[in-house]
């Protein structure tokens, strides 16, 4: 993976769409994440879990993408949750005052149990 790339991998657990992110989410690729999440929501997904366990860092551009997707999910009566927001990535959420802006579960397992 190039040092500044973001990898977005989708998988399913029953009715839940899991979006696993890996790498860096910055000003150059946050738009790509927003487009992908919005396209999942507009295609009718009703439960989306975004896994941050492999994210190295994110910037405010990523927060914008996540806030837009959260609003879109609300409009579509879909559930949109995050998991494994840990370490330095969690600190960035905290600094942005955004820990309470999203539904965040500790691990993928916990999130799947809550969504299931």
């Amino acid at each position: 993976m190039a040092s500044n790339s973001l990898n977005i991998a989708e998988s399913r657990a029953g009715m839940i769409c899991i979006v696993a992110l890996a790498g860096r989410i910055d000003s150059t690729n946050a738009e790509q994440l927003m487009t992908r999440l919005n396209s999942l929501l507009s295609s009718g997904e009703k439960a989306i879990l975004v896994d941050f366990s492999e994210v190295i860092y994110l910037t405010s551009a990523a927060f914008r993408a996540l806030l837009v997707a959260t609003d879109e999910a609300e409009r579509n009566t879909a559930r949109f949750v995050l998991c494994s927001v840990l370490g330095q990535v969690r600190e960035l959420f905290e600094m942005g005052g955004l820990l309470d802006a999203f539904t965040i579960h500790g691990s993928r397992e916990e999130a799947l149990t809550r969504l299931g």
Partner: protein
Amino acid sequence: MASFREQTMRIAIPNELAALPVATATLQRFGADNGVPDKALVQLQVALDEIVSNIIKYAWPEGGSHELTICLTAHRGAVEIEIVDDGQAFDPLSVPSPVHPPKGRRPRPGGVGIHITRNLIDGIEYVRTDGENHIILTKRYAGCVPPERGLDGQ
């Protein structure tokens, strides 16, 4: 007292977001070469992304091709990043902290990047001189020695 040679690297990038990875990748290499701890390096990369993307998006409302220069300097226990552009005057220190949303409401995007940068970085200075904006970010860290030079600076 062991000697320490300051290292400096200067790059220029066009005012295009697509050029930003060049800057963050250069910073990553520079930090690794100068023994900057991983956590401090990530914090610097986030801050650089926030400041440079802001400049690219807002410094030249009339558009056109412009260039930003980024100068990285490794001091003993600190890295300084100076970002220079010839866009309209803009002091990032003048940006107010984001307002907390009313209870039960989600925050809106906007102002978060500068706020995060202030939290990540130990010092931010802004100078407007000769029609140019100079933003200087300083990040201090403890206890690392550049791997290829050692304590005697050799």
